[in-house]
């Protein structure tokens, strides 16, 4: 029997507001534990929440970008469970009246466009962090850091529209791109500003009803999500083929073992006892406010891609790669500011720069090669000061040290030799030293020319202008 998977994703994205959702504390990542807290976010007796309006605006922006219908009235609710990282022992979240619903996201998989539904987007507060000290004391200790408590969190719930882990991966990439373009989230999975849980089930191909689903948690990269889904789908198929039943449960992905493990079954599932938050009034979004937010929406990746093709005459593929990441698109546009050859810039960025960044596990923001470096290097090539080949050496040095290209060229003496007299002299020396190859060439073995050319380049440490060398060499040999 052939099976297909049914996948829905729940993405939590921290909103990059300056202050927390219900108090004035900073949301800055990485501060000393418990330095960004106040009576409100630590749940002191008698405190009350006051909603951060910017958080609502960010979530409305996202809703509009995902074609969601923004509810004219949404409400907060208390989600109740006991845990030490949740000071009030309830989370202020949203339940039956979220900010927005019924949107979609178009993704490209294997060259085809697939429309994936968005069920809802809602706003809630993040919890704190627990730090465990294990084994170092007679009694192990646990500590609570509440800096993260109350950071605004946007939950985006997809429809169960994905059928493969690749589609899930494409969805996440596209969603991340939109959030970055809107500048509403840092989308950093390592720092936890973006988190993803997956609901996955399998069913025989052709069957309409959904199978019993498992919720998979604890993935900390997009690749991890894809791998976890691949594992979980295979596991469910195996269980089914062995004649056993899938149980509804929560499973944790172990990135080291590359397996999912059962965390709790449905019988142990929480009853969160949701009820409307009496300390907050409903959020009312009128047409005027909605229109004002709509007017601030920036150009999104799909629009930018079209513009790149039109404005810079880039191939669709290049425009797609460059605009998938907002920072990369901005890097590209900064590079070609006042530079006439966008395609050359695109080639260098897409191949050399992205490859090096990938290998070094760096983001475009961390690149020591700034758009200015890149543009000046391209100009040196265009002027003939360095060859494309030398440029690669210059590039590597810039990538490592951040030195400007002209400095690298000067320090390493990499200026291209184009002087015909000087090149002719070196060629004569090479021909004299390699009489055998000269004979072979003259006897019709054209490969000998490449050898001689290589010798000239070697003697000049690659600095000779290859076009000039080629021309003079052929002259001398004819």
């Amino acid at each position: 029997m052939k099976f297909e998977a049914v996948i829905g994703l729940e993405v939590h994205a921290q909103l990059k507001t300056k202050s927390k959702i219900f108090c004035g504390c900073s949301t800055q990542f990485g501060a000393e534990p418990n330095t960004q807290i106040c009576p409100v976010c630590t749940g002191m007796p008698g405190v009350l929440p006051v909603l951060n309006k910017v958080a609502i605006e960010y979530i409305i922006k996202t809703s509009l970008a995902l074609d969601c219908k923004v509810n004219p009235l949404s409400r907060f609710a208390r989600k109740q469970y006991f845990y030490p990282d949740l000071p009030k022992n309830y989370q202020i979240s949203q339940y039956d009246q979220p900010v927005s619903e019924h949107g979609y996201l178009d993704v490209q998989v294997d060259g085809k466009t697939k429309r994936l539904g968005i069920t809802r987007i809602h706003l809630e507060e993040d919890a704190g962090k627990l730090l465990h000290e294990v084994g170092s004391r007679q009694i192990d200790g646990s500590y609570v850091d509440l800096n993260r408590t109350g950071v605004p969190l946007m939950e985006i719930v997809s429809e169960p529209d994905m059928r493969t882990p690749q589609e899930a991966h494409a969805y996440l990439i596209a969603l991340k791109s939109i959030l970055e373009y809107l500048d509403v989230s840092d989308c950093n999975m390592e720092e936890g500003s973006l988190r993803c849980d997956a609901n996955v089930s399998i069913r025989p191909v052709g069957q309409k009803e959904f199978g019993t689903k498992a919720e998979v948690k604890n993935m900390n990269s997009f690749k991890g999500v894809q791998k976890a889904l691949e594992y979980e789908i295979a596991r469910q198929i195996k269980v089914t083929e062995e004649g056993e039943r899938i149980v509804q449960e929560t499973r944790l992905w172990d990135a080291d073992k590359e397996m999912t493990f059962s965390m709790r079954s449905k019988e142990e599932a929480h009853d969160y006892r949701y009820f409307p938050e009496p300390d907050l009034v409903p959020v009312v979004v009128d047409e005027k406010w909605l229109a004002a937010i709509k007017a601030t929406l920036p150009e999104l990746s799909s629009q930018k891609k079209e513009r790149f093709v039109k404005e810079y005459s880039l191939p669709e593929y290049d425009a797609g790669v460059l605009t998938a990441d907002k920072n990369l698109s901005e890097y590209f546009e900064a590079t070609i500011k006042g530079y006439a050859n966008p395609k050359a810039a695109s080639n260098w960025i897409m191949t050399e720069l992205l490859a090096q960044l990938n290998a070094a596990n760096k983001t475009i923001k961390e690149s020591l090669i700034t758009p200015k470096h890149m543009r000046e290097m391209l100009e040196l090539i265009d002027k003939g000061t360095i060859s494309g080949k030398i440029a690669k050496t210059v590039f590597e040095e810039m990538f490592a040290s951040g030195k400007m290209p002209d400095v690298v060229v000067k320090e390493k003496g990499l200026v291209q030799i184009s002087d015909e007299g000087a090149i002719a002299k070196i060629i004569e020396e090479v021909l004299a030293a390699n009489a055998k190859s000269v004979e072979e060439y003259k006897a019709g073995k054209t490969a000998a020319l490449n050898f001689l050319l290589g010798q000239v380049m070697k003697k000049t440490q690659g600095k000779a202008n290859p076009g000039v060398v080629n021309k003079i060499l052929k002259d001398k040999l004819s």
Partner: protein
Amino acid sequence: MDLFNLTAHELTAKIKNKEVTSKEVTENVFKRIEAVEPKVKAYVTLLKDKALAQAAEVDAKIAAGKEAGLLAGIPIAIKDNMNIKGTKCTCSSKILNNFISPYNATIIDLLSAEGAVFTGKTNMDEFAMGSSTETSFFGKTFNPWNLQAIPGGSSGGSAATMAADEAIMALGSDTGGSIRQPASCCGIVGLKPTYGRVSRFGLVAFASSLDQIGPLTKDVTDAALLMNVIAKYDPKDSTSANILAPDYLKSLQNNVKGMKIGIPKEYFVEGMDKEVEKSVREAIKLLEKLGAQIIEISLPNTEYCLAVYYILAPSEASANLARYDGVKYGYRTPDANDLLEQYEKTRGEGFGPEVKRRIMLGTYALSSGYYDAYYLKAQKVRTMIKNDFEEAFKKVDVIITPTAPSAAFKIGEKMDDPMQMYLSDIFTISVNLAGIPAMSLPCGFTSQKMPIGLQVMAKHFNEEAIFRAAYTYEQNTNWHKEKPRL
């Protein structure tokens, strides 16, 4: 000369005219506290040193000719569920026995800005859950009119300070009658303002959609004076109303001519306490004689109030009290082996039986499978109760009822019977459910010389109508001038 038995409006004049200093008033009040507190036990924390320092500040300002505020030098008692930075805020619970507040409630800032002096924190039913102040972890408070009787609750400590002259003014909180019922029991004035009129920021939550802070005072004028200070919009409380409060002192007119007073038949029923009924009927007659028009009205959903309240208030409380878990502050069990045990033992040992009963009620009502039948249904009936009042206030300016079905009962009388205890609030709960304002003021005594309270209700944000009716009644009676012998 004794100063402790004066009202704030009498004292502010004397302090501003430099007849007396705030220090003299404060010292005099503490002298009184030292004399009668062993019998009454109204306070859980006394703040004598701080109070004297505050008084000195006020005196310095007045000596320098500076503006010292509307309540300059007036000693005020604060119910122990309002946060004052650097002092204990226990809610009369073991679970917060060691809790020192890191911040000020908004009303504390407002009072401080007007020169008020804080005498201390007053006893209450644990987390404001009760009608007798008997559920306090720190022991009972005794009714100054009869030390064998309860002072009412939950703001029993604040009410007792007024009857016993252990402060000049007091603040309480009212979720289902917790200001008005003790005011009635202690023969003083208590006002529950409109929901949203006074900031709840810094008031430890019992039931968020019902809680409201209000004054407990020795007369109606002081209640208006205190309201002029605390009735302010507060951006820190999202449920606070952004409506400018009027000068309540201006609504103190000795005149009810043409005022329409509604008498709801559902509040005068067979079997109610005869002495209470007689006093309230006489009060209504007096107001009629003074020119008010008396109109019989109906609030048809009155019979559901108690049931609705005992679903909604515990539901909200079950969430509001979840934070007391021994992790961050407050009591923590000394012997737990794991997290679950720490939660269970801390809460099992830290909360008293009434609080536990309500947490369980609320948890049950919100549980999956019961939510629709209890919480949601109760919310719908709450809307019907609100509508009853809206209809009634189309016909009348104020509604008058008894505050409580009986005068203060004996200590211990109802502690073993929660239903009987809950019935103490039968006449006050509807006001909280509707969110409207209501006052209790003295309207007589039983044959046992126990005070009886008259409840005056008005529509949302119309405290002025209450003040007018109450002031007129007060000016034409002498009940508020009587003091218990201690």
